[in-house]
């Protein structure tokens, strides 16, 4: 496995370097995981990407670096302590740096010769690909894909010159080399929505969710999905609900701050029983928090957001594969149970890219329409055994479809009848009983004969998986983990079974208060003996988890 960091100031071309490397290395058959560490500014500051690649699967990012591609001096100073002894630092020859691992190349000079300082990133990518014994032809093909006519010539020259400036140093790792897909978390969510026949997406731009809207907008005409930028998040969710009521699959996406504005309408979707999918790509809060960084601190908020009581489902995305399939499933669950489904993602997953196996469109769940008797009067909120009432689309039949945010009778008309109120509340909540039967249990990782059980949810899965594998390969003490995707309602079967054998339970979460542990304790009485919590806006790595666990003994 190799791990590189590309660092510099915003606007210097980190993204170009990372994209060329990601695409070329994938083309040559590697599994890849890239992560972004970006400041909330358009120019300056310090940004970096990491790109980890191997012939085997790669689950997460790491801070143990084999190489640093430094587009400025700061990148070296900030990261050289993370560099392996035999790693390399690639930088411009003007950079003052006496580290023996340094490879200096004339990036600035060549970019001046080429006539555009922005090609520095492409030159650096060329050099890195040569170091790792990649093919220049592959790199040239990727460059051809990436740049339009105006910039292609310059970047082609840059990639060739960069490639020729350094010698090959690292052998190519042998692997299966099968063609795979490479997607970011937000792209995978968008693809999941497209595969589930999304027809309407509406949002107010908010990092780190905005690229979902951007991707869907780029496919709007091809797919037949209307993408509407709302005036605020309140409009966005109310629009999504209105469109869904009128018969099209709808989604909205935001981050915690926008979700805060949406909560009243979340209850409307619950009360009126209108299916919608809401993506909360979490970032550190409260208030504006860290706009471009990561956290898992909205869990308790989204499972209880909005006043009153109504059924909902919350799915946290564990990896890029999940981002596709669980988004498609969210549409299915929302429509089947006529409820709001919240997808919990985070900045780390949203902006990171990973290789995944080919997406299978055949296995996606299909929704069958609720049957309505020929002669019976149409009642939008008919009391049924499982609580799911027949949902018709207005205008599609002669029947009229009335929905109400007020408490209503079976017809959908406002009522203050005490008996109807109780029956309607029971009807709505009953839907959860059936839904619970198709919850997905948390993923069990590690060995069945374990001492310590780790608990986590969402995007920390990769790091937890690596942790369990590493610890089990080095020590006597054995580890296992349960990582939750479905978090509300909470699937309990596997949890109750596994905790019986655990000598110690440790929760690993990207928040300050241990929200998953709280939810588990509230719903099962199970308490965790120790918490590993990280809330500095940076995603936890397996090394950090191992270090903490080893310290605890």
């Amino acid at each position, binding site marked *: 496995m190799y791990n590189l960091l590309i660092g510099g100031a915003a606007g210097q071309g980190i993204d170009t370097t990372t994209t060329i490397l990601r695409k070329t290395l994938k083309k040559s058959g590697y599994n890849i995981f890239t992560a972004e560490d970006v400041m909330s500014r358009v120019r300056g500051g310090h940004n970096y990407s990491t790109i980890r690649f191997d012939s085997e699967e790669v689950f997460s990012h790491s801070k143990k670096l084999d190489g640093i591609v430094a587009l400025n001096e700061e990148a070296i100073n900030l990261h050289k302590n993370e560099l392996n002894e035999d790693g390399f630092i690639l930088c411009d020859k003007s950079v003052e740096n006496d580290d023996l691992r340094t490879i200096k190349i004339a990036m600035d000079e060549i970019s001046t010769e080429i006539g555009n300082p922005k090609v520095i990133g492409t030159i650096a990518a060329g050099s890195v690909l040569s170091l790792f014994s990649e093919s220049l032809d592959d790199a040239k093909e990727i460059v051809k894909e990436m740049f339009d006519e105006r910039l292609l010539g310059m970047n082609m020259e840059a990639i060739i010159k960069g490639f020729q400036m350094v010698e090959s140093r690292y052998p190519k790792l042998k692997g299966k080399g099968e*063609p*795979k*897909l*490479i*997607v970011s978390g937000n*792209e995978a969510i968008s*693809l999941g929505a*497209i*595969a589930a026949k999304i*027809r*309407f997406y*509406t949002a107010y731009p908010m990092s780190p969710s905005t690229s979902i809207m951007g991707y869907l907008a780029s496919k*709007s*005409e*091809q*797919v*037949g*999905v*209307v993408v*509407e930028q*709302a*005036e*605020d998040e*309140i*409009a*966005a969710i*109310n*629009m*999504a*609900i*209105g*469109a*869904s*009521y*009128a*018969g*099209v699959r*709808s989604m909205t996406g935001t981050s915690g701050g926008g979700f805060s504005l949406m909560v*009243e309408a979340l209850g*409307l979707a619950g009360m*009126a029983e209108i299916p919608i999918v809401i993506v909360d790509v979490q970032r550190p809060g409260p208030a504006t928090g860290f706009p471009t960084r990561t956290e898992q601190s909205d869990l308790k908020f989204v499972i209880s957001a909005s006043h009153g009581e109504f059924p909902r489902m919350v799915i946290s995305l564990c990896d890029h594969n999940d981002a596709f399939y669980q988004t498609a499933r969210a549409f299915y669950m929302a429509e089947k149970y006529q409820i709001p489904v919240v997808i919990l993602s985070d900045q780390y997953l949203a902006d990171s890219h990973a290789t995944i196996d*080919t*997406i299978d*469109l055949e296995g996606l769940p299909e929704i069958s329409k609720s049957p309505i008797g020929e002669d019976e009067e149409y009642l939008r909120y008919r009391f049924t055994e499982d609580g799911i009432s027949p949902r018709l*689309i*207005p*205008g599609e*039949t*002669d*029947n*009229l*479809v*009335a*929905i*109400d*945010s*007020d408490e209503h009778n079976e017809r*959908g*008309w*406002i009522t203050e009848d005490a008996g109807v109120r109780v029956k309607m509340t029971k009807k709505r909540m009953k839907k959860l009983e059936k839904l619970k039967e198709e919850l997905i249990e948390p993923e069990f990782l590690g060995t069945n004969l374990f001492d310590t059980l780790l608990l986590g949810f969402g995007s920390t899965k990769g790091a937890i998986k690596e942790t369990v594998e590493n610890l089990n390969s080095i020590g006597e003490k054995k580890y296992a983990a349960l990582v939750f995707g479905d978090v509300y309602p909470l699937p309990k079967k596997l949890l109750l079974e596994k905790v019986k054998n655990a000598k110690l339970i440790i929760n690993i979460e990207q928040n300050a208060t241990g929200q998953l542990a709280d939810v588990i304790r509230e719903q099962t009485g199970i308490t965790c003996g120790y918490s590993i919590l990280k809330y500095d806006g940076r995603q936890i790595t397996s090394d950090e988890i191992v270090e903490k666990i080893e310290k605890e003994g």
Partner: protein
Amino acid sequence: MSTDKYVTYETAWCPGCGNFSILSSLKTALEELKIENNKVLMVAGIGQAAKTPQYINTNAFCGLHGRALPAAVAAKIANEELTVIVDTGDGDSYGEGCNHFLHNIRRNVNITHFVHDNQIYGLTKGQASPTSEEGFVTGIQVDGNINTPFNPILIAIAAGAGFVARAYSGNPEHLTSIMKQAINYDGYALVDILQPCVSFNKVNNYAYYSQRVYELEDDYDCNQKVLAMERAMEFGDKIPLGIIYKEDKPSYHSKNSVLKKGKPLVDIPYDKETVKKIVEEFK
């Protein structure tokens, strides 16, 4: 003209309320336009006026206070074959929902917006609304309202609305005629309907309006924006009724790349081959 088709059940409105006349004018307008009731979608937020969709036999979406417009425009985006009418109050439209009011004028989705403007909050029993006059005394504005009244007609014209009208619940024939023209307009159409609140507004009552309202002259040219803005500012001793401003402009559906092809969004089929092609792009 029989209006039985749209009849539902007993209302929760006070006897003498202007809402009754607006409701019956709306039923007449829909009957005369010969729109099937299963193709009509009435949308409202919360308030006394916002109960209107409950009292008319059509599809009904009674959503959240202030949020009728986003739900309505999205329903129209989803299915352009529905006649979508937002029928709600001044608090819902200009207070809680004012941001949506401004931005949906800009969006210009082909819906009709009837605002029951009684210059008071009725359901919450008598507080100032955005259109209450300065000095208007309520249980909350005890020294009289100190805020400048909101002028929905002027603001709608300024924001770019293509159909801006005012009507009065005390003149149902005129109201019905305006309603029909608003429904037929291809784009966002606003009708601000003056309406007495017999329970809580003792100032802007039937006598008050009857003395002031007048129908625009036959030769009034509603296509002149600056003149229309002047008329929009006429709200005092004399209050004009009628289409104050009208302009043909392309609607949302005619401009959106998906919708302008003419197929309702709800009818666009799922094409697995397209989805496969898109997935392949990530190889």
